[in-house]
């Protein structure tokens, strides 16, 4: 029984990092209608910049991390402005290929600049402490990830409901022409959406890098985040988070009780099953196409 709770707790802990990636992907999907393959690498570059600032330049944490987050914001905006916007009459597959191209470019750039060795990211909280409740462990990093994920969700919720830019973003997603007619600068709004998504991804990346930093570390979380976002519904932010938690918990339960090797496989099988029942994900509104 204890094991069961431990697995659920660990699943929620790992689901939080997936949830952050999923949030980023859903934000961009709602804005640009493209599943974003560069989500991982948009986070990777700022993380390595943070590593450089912390280890080579010796900046303190409270200077380096905010600088990194600002860099991530600008990186996201830059990618949208310089690359995605320049696509003429894009279709979805073309945009996907552009994101894949950006992903390779950023990954190659990071590997080129920093070399391929694994590194340890200096982090204010030790990765190896844990909080013990009875017989159940949750490491401090996981606790932090969980708390940060919840805080970010809350911030995004308030942002979208109450701030001007947030409302503008919602308007642009619902109907771009009408938003433009109402005086919203849709291009700028889209750019800011990318920036925010990159920021969220960067937070996820920093938390993930606390354990181990290497150029290829973002692939797996991005994939699981994508899967989670799909289960929850690509057009719904709380759905993405919920889906990510489901993926995390299912993986851990299956890995603990049945077979560790196949845990990813089962996660995807569950996703396909859920999608067969609800084709647009759990929380999204299923838009019925008209002829």
């Amino acid at each position: 029984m204890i094991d069961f709770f431990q697995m659920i707790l660990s699943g929620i802990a790992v689901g939080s990092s997936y949830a952050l990636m999923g949030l980023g992907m859903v934000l961009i999907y709602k804005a640009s209608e493209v599943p974003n393959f560069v989500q991982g690498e948009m986070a990777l570059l700022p993380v390595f910049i943070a590593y450089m600032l912390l280890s080579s330049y010796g900046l303190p944490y409270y200077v380096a991390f905010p600088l990194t987050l600002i860099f991530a914001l600008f990186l996201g905006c830059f990618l949208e402005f310089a690359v995605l916007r320049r696509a003429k009459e894009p279709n979805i597959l073309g945009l996907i290929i552009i994101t894949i191209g950006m992903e390779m470019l950023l990954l190659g750039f990071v590997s080129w600049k920093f070399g391929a060795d694994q590194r340890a990211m200096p982090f204010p909280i030790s990765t190896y402490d844990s909080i013990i409740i009875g017989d159940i462990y949750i490491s401090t990093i996981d606790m932090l990830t969980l708390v940060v994920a919840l805080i970010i969700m809350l911030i995004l919720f308030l942002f979208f409901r109450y701030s001007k830019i947030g409302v503008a973003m919602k308007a642009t997603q619902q109907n771009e022409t009408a938003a433009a007619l109402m005086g919203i600068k849709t291009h700028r709004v889209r750019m800011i959406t990318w920036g925010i998504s990159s920021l969220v991804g960067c937070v996820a990346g920093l938390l993930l890098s606390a354990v181990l930093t290497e150029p290829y570390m973002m692939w797996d979380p991005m994939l699981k985040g994508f899967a989670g976002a799909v289960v929850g519904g690509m057009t719904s932010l709380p759905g993405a988070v919920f889906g990510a938690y489901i993926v995390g918990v299912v993986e851990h339960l299956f890995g603990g009780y049945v077979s560790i090797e196949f845990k990813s496989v089962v996660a995807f099988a569950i996703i396909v099953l859920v999608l067969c029942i609800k084709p647009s994900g759990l929380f999204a509104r299923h838009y019925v196409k008209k002829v």
Partner: protein
Amino acid sequence: MDMKRNYYEDVQLFTSGVIVFWLSVLVIGLAIFPFVAKNYYVYVANYMAINVIVVIGLNLLVGYTGQISLGHAGFFAIGAYGTIVLMTKAHFPFLLALPVAGLIAAGFGFLLGLPALRLEGPYLAIATLGFGITTTQIIGKIKAFGERQGLHAPELTIGTWHLNTDRDFYLLLIPITLLLAVFARNIVKTKVGRAFISIRDADIAAETMGVNLTLYKTLAFAVSAFYAGIGGGLYAFVLRFIEPELFSLFMSVMFLTMAVVGGLGSILGPIAGACLLAWLDLQLRNILSIPYIGEWLEALSKSYFSITGVSNIQLIVFGFILIMIMLFEPLGIYGIWIRTKKYWKTWPF
């Protein structure tokens, strides 16, 4: 662009004498190529041909039927493992094992097509992605498939012809590729192809017109899986050794990229895309040997970047080419070709 005056003109394989001429030049060139070029270039040509086969199939699914698949590496793996296992365990001759493996892959394609009936866009992408990952995991567990250690391809003999050099494989591959390309083109021009196109453009309208969505969507998956299976079976022999790790998500993404960059919705498009990207994949490592650019890149690496990671320039260049092609021509390489043709056809207006 070209006006068709009757059904026969739409369906015929060669629309004019000019096309016949250039095609025969191409065929003669392809036939002479392995005898004049170095063995290494024949290997590159083999690799490109296999990618062409798979991407033509993928294009039937993505370009003509409007679905998306991130799991084609799974069908590729089924074809590769199927061919080898049928040849070693069931003692099938190669010319029988290959189509049977393709049909097995087509069967799995049909199974994958069933959930596809309700899904689209990123949802379908994740479902197919899951399939691709599942296949490699399951293959990695089966002892008959060599588990994780992989399988060696057996010796290949067709009748009395013993194939073991790249040139032999080339002479086997190119006719198969040409055959499959012609086959794909014929599919596209018939009722089945028109059904695919109608599903892509407006599937609800198609259904009301009497196009059986279930049949044609699963058929699209099955046919593209067949192509991928054949490609996989041939790949096993070109590479001589396969293991589950080869058929990764990255391979599926590469196939999709080749299809889109080449140009969806045509037969020449995937050929161009697969040739270009497969060639880049194998040849970009030579980028540092290009006379001036190579030295400049090395100097740049030494001063600002790490020289140890200098080979990562391959990734950067590859990504850059992808972005450039898609930014300037969303229809891919085939789109560039069509634009050029249109420009010169209507010149000087």
